[in-house]
């Protein structure tokens, strides 16, 4: 075995002698793998191969592994020489011996324990051997330590570290329990000791620190004294330098410093949140309410003989309560009270209120001037009752304030009046009405302005930010208010002033709750439409909406934008208006007035958006038709509800032409319905002319609105025919003539021609682009488009296949190698036998008869050899042919489950 093979192939020999570079450069060694085509950017490892080299490598390897195994086959033992470098052929024998000796030495000195550091080196501490210290310092230890030392028992650990000891202990007997108590004691003591010790240490440390501190302080002081001596020279030198530097301070630096010292923006008081504001408002109102109640009872008797006049309704708005009023009186008595800060504020508010009231009065005053004012003023006074008084009071007060006269003591009457005023004055807080009846009760008997105040205060008291349910309450309030407005309008006479006053409140509520407002309004409109529809289904026509509906429609326009293309409220409202204009026949001048109001509303609705309302034009032309005397040969057609002729088709025809002179333009009132029938013909004529003038006014507005429409001419064709042929200028009074001519001018100016209709130009559709879609490929050669698992499986399959093939190839090579080896073995043996025979023959002296007696001549040993050989041949009768063996091996491998892989490279390097 140890014998190296005798013969080596020539090629091997050659190879061995040659260097690696020589081999590589040798064109006979190199095999170039032809590439079909170049792929840019791909590096291939296998373009050049050295088959000879790799074959010899493989053979060598087999010799070392397979061949050895083969030789060891059927052998129970084997000898392994474990001496150092025994199998290392490269090593020189001397080196080997040296190394072996070194190893031997090492083995002697080898450590016994890996972790034993002290074995060889001696550790020192402060230059003293640690071992020494251990030895001698044992006695120095304190008693406590010595006591505890080495007492590491289970009990101690239990007492120190707790753990599951408690449980264990419970299981034991009573004695043990007693012992346990003792132990616990000792433990407690131990802890106490520990604490004491640590405290002691702490104190000691503290003392030490203090001492050190004292020392350092001392040192510092001493140092300072020295330093003063040492440093004194330098500051002097600096001082001398300074005067030179001073002029160097430039403006820039000054500026910088100035800016640095400048006042920075101070944080001001934060803005109050709406909730806080609402709360303040409510508090204010509550305070006022408290005041009012107090004054109603008349508490300010005793010392307030002179003061009550100032505590009128207006006075109190500053929110001062009675207890604090002494300051006021003082200031008042001095005559300077109106200079004070608070009183100023006070005064301001008063003035504001007065102004408001004055405005109100002036609002009302316009008509009062016209009519006999005296009585009405009285009426107003009586209706507004004590409010008027308070006004008077405040007026007095303001006069006094301005003149700053010291006020005389108030008379008893004044006091009484003031008390009454307090009674009549509005409360400052109101509960939100729960039902419509509540609201009515709340507002009953108040002046319009007060009603507004009540609603405003209710709104403030129940601001949504104050309580959870307030939102709902106010939403309800909006609905109730709407209902109330409707009721006001249906009263006779309609209380439109109150409606007018309530509008701002409605507006604010609407701004707060748009959705609720929208729903409330929608329900009103829906109801109106529904009732109208019902009437229409039965009769085919309906009556004009009443005043409350007109007011609602107007309010709608105030609260919601009318110019929206589609709006949940205004669109139905406009539809309702138009429905009324088409379905309600005009049967009286009242109907006509309502219709004209509807027209006004319609014009207002579309005034911004300029939308086209056919019904409006129809109604206006129908109205004009009512004024035509001669109803024959018309150049226009009428649209329902108007008819060419009939009972009501002469509604606006004047009974006599004289009225034209006496007529002066007035506006149309709605609320005079009942009286109309009783009026004289002249009055009726005047009314007709009023209607006509309004109608013409509206027509003019429509002309201006719609003059951009392409079919303007055709839309206004009936009106044009009416005005130019039937309602001639001469028959009309002067103011109407103006309208008349203006409208006709407007109609004449309109462009007659239009360009033809064409479709809107479409944007050309861009052609379909056919540029390829570029996808960045980051991993070449990998299969894409499947899931990760699938890819993994593919990869494994591929790998398995590759390995399988490789294994097969290796097996074939192995068997080939083995066969070769066997063959060579046999050959060798044969050759040896031949040689031996030859030798024998030579020994015998050769001759022709040698071959015949071959067997007999063979010695016993040779014969044995031969027998062995024969036996082997029969067992492996065909082993020389490698194929059989190979197939067998293959079977072996393939019988293994495909999942179990042959370990890669088991036969390769």
């Amino acid at each position, binding site marked *: 075995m140890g014998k190296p093979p005798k013969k080596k192939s020539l090629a091997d020999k050659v190879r061995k002698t040659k260097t690696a570079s020589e081999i590589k450069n040798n064109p006979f060694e190199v095999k170039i793998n032809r590439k079909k085509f170049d792929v840019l950017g791909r590096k291939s490892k296998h373009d050049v191969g050295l088959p000879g080299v790799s074959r010899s490598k493989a053979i060598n390897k087999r010799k070392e592994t397979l061949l050895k195994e083969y030789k060891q086959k059927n052998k129970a033992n084997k000898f392994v020489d474990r001496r150092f470098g025994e199998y290392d052929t490269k090593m020189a024998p001397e080196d080997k011996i040296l190394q072996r000796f070194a190893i031997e030495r090492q083995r002697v000195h080898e450590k016994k324990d890996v972790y034993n550091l002290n074995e060889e080196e001696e550790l020192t501490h402060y230059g003293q051997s640690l071992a020494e210290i251990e030895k001698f310092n044992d006695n120095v230890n304190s008693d406590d330590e010595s006591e505890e030392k080495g007492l590491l028992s289970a009990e101690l650990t239990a007492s120190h570290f707790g753990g599951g000891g408690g449980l264990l202990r419970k299981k034991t007997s009573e004695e043990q329990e007693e012992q346990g108590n003792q132990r616990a004691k000792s433990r407690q003591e131990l802890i106490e000791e520990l604490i004491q010790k640590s405290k002691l240490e702490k104190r000691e440390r503290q003392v030490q620190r203090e001492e050190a501190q004292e020392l350092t302080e001392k040192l510092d002081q001493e140092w300072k004294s020295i330093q003063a001596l040492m440093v004194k020279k330098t500051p002097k030198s600096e001082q001398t330098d300074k005067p030179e530097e001073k002029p160097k301070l430039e403006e820039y630096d000054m500026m910088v410093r100035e800016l640095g010292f400048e006042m920075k923006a101070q944080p001001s008081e934060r803005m109050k949140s709406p909730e806080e504001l609402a709360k303040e408002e409510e508090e204010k109102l509550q305070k006022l309410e408290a005041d009012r109640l107090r004054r109603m009872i008349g508490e300010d008797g005793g010392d307030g003989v002179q003061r009550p006049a100032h505590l009128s309704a207006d006075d109190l708005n500053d929110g001062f309560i009675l207890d604090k009023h002494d300051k006021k009186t003082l200031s008042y008595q001095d005559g300077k009270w109106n200079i004070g800060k608070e009183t100023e504020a006070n005064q301001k508010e008063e003035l504001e209120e007065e102004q408001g009231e004055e405005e109100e009065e002036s609002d009302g005053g316009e008509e009062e001037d016209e009519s006999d004012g005296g009585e009405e003023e009285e009426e107003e006074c009586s209706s507004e009752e004590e409010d008027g008084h308070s006004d008077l009071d405040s007026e007095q007060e303001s006069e006094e304030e301005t003149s700053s006269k010291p006020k005389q003591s108030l008379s008893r009457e004044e006091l009484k009046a003031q008390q009454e005023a307090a009674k009549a004055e509005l409360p400052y807080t109101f509960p939100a009405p729960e039902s419509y009846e509540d609201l009515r009760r709340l507002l009953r008997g108040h002046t319009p302005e007060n009603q507004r105040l009540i609603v405003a205060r209710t709104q403030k008291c129940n601001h949504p930010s104050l309580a959870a349910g307030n939102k709902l309450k106010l939403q309800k309030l909006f609905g109730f208010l709407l209902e109330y407005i409707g009721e006001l309008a249906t009263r006779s*006479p*309609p209380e439109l002033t109150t409606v*007018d006053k309530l509008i701002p409140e409605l507006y604010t509520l609407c701004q707060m709750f*748009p959705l609720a407002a929208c729903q409330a309004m929608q329900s009103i409109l829906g109801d109106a439409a529904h009732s109208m529809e019902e009437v229409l289904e039965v009769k085919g026509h309906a009556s004009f909406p009443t005043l409350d509906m007109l007011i609602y429609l107007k309010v709608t326009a105030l609260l919601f934008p009318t110019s929206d293309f589609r709006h949940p409220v205004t669109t139905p409202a406009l539809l309702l208006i138009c429905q009324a204009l088409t379905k309600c026949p005009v049967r009286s001048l009242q109907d006509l007035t309502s219709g004209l109001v509807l027209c006004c509303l319609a014009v207002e609705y579309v005034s911004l958006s300029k939308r086209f309302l056919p019904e409006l034009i129809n109604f206006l032309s129908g109205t004009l038709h009512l004024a035509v005397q001669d109803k024959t040969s018309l150049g226009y057609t009428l649209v329902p509800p108007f008819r060419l002729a009939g009972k009501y088709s002469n509604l606006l025809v004047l009974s006599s032409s004289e009225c034209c002179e006496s007529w002066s333009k007035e506006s149309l009132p709605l*609320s005079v319905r009942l009286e109309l029938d009783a009026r004289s013909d002249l009055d009726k004529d005047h009314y007709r002319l009023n209607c006509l003038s309004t109608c013409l006014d509206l027509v003019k507005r429509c002309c201006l609105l719609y003059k951009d429409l392409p079919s303007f001419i*055709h839309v206004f064709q009936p009106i044009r025919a009416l005005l130019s042929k039937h309602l001639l200028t001469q028959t009309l009074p002067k103011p109407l003539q103006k309208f008349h001519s203006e409208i006709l001018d407007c109609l004449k100016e309109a462009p007659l021609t239009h360009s033809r*209709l064409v479709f809107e130009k479409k944007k050309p559709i861009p052609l379909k682009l056919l540029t390829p879609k570029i996808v960045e490929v980051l991993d070449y050669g990998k299969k894409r488009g499947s899931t990760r698992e699938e890819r993994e499986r593919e990869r494994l399959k591929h790998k398995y296949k590759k390995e399988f093939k490789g294994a097969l190839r290796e097996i074939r090579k192995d068997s080939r190698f083995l066969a070769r080896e066997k063959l060579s073995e046999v050959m060798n043996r044969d050759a040896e036998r031949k040689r031996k025979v030859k030798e024998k023959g030579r020994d015998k002296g050769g001759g022709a008869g040698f071959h015949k007696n071959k067997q007999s001549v063979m010695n016993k040993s040779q014969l044995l050899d031969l027998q062995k050989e024969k036996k082997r041949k029969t067992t492996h009768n065909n082993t020389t042919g490698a194929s059989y063996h190979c197939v067998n091996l293959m079977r072996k491998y393939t019988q293994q489950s495909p999942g179990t892989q042959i370990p890669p490279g088991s036969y390769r390097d």
Partner: protein
Amino acid sequence: MALTEKRNVSSKLNPKRPKIDIESIVEGILGSRKRANDVFDILESLRSAKEKDVISAASACSKLFSTLLERKDLFIGKLPDEDEALNGDYSAEEKYHIFMRHRYNSCVEMLLEYLHHEVHEVKESVLSCLMKFAAAEGQHPLEDMDWSEHYSFPRQLIQLVVDNILSKTTDNSLLISKFQEYLEMEDVRYYVMSSIRVNVSAVMEKNKEVLLHVYQNNVFTLMSSINMPSQESELTNFMVKQEAKLEDWKATKLSDHKRGFEKMWLGFLKYKLPVSMYKKVLVILHDAVLPHMIKPTLMIDFLTAAYDVGGAISLLALNGLFVLIHQHNLDYPDFYRKLYNLLEPSVFHAKYRARFFHLVNLFLSSSHLPVYLVAAFAKRLARLALTAPPTALLIVLPFIYNLIRRHPSCRVLIHKPTAEDEALEDPYVMDEEDPVHCCALESSLWEIKTLQKHYHPDVAKAAMLINTPLPVQEDDISEVLEITTHELMERDLKSETKSVPLEFETATELLRGCLAWPVHLQVCINQSRSEI
């Protein structure tokens, strides 16, 4: 009977005695002939002023006489005079029969009079009583059986009932609806139809050229409540069962029914009708009358006359005409011209708008119409749309679009690109009656352009469609035909709104507006202020 009994029980206020009396009297009369004279008591109570008494008496009468008829206790044949009968040579039995027959006759007379009573209950009970008599008489005829034509049907009685129902003074529509129950019976219907014809011709001949609104209304109500059977096999429900010769009886033949029906209607429509009646007739004509006539073409005269009347009546006549043209091959000259002239602004406001547009849609659905005609229709409708309410616009706009789709050469109306961008006056002549000469094809639908500014969003959107080429699919008009303004409003009111835009300008007073309010309300406010 049951009805009246119930009444008696339920009304405790009335003393029960007279009822019991009447009941017992009836029992008595039926029990023995000796008490035959008690029949006068019943007749007396029938004359009473109280409605309840009358009703109970009527029920008693019906019970009495129908039993007598059943017993054949009434005289059959030509009735001799009562005095004569008393004196005459009759047996006691016969005398009794004659007596009862006279009472029966007077009872019927009284009942017929009561058909003009003002209280509906009375009329109703009287009518049911009379019809019971009729049924009984039919079963037990009072005349000698002549077996000739009418078999045993109380023709005279029915004629009398019909004559009285068709009152000239009171509106009997309620009673007629009650009478409709009896009209379900085939023989009754047949004889009622002939009696109506007789009655109408008699009455109308008497009052020539005078409109009898109430009478004609009654006649119409009665005639329209006749439900004609559609198949002969349906003729099964008879009031009078005929024992023999059923095959020859006219009341069993559908053709005879139809003939009677046709005669009745023609007889009615022959005379001048009030306008409202015209409308009513025309509304049901195509549906309820024409299919049941043997020769519907006989209606041509009536329909053409109605078509020429103009307005809503023409619209309605269109429907009948359509049936005749479509199913009976009527050739109507200048039909489309007339149709074109029917298009007036009032079309959009009429009650029968949906029906009209449905028909016009049918008439114009033919693809063989000349382009000028279709263009004329489209242009005229567009022009009229300028005065139409939004509901009509929602019909008209898709209608016009459909016309343009069906006749692609009409597309010039909405798309006529010209090289030189010249502006022109609308060449369309609205007043031209002949669609040939109205120059619609040279025009464009500027009206729809105008409607793009319409106030209602749906209409504006629909009008916007002409800005781009129309989609190929035709719009289905039938969906929007019946839409009402209320529905339009509901759409907006019911739709879920997430956000409600608000007016940003603060409202300070009622009459704030961007234009000077033409002072109606101002005065109101001022007035009410001064009142305060």
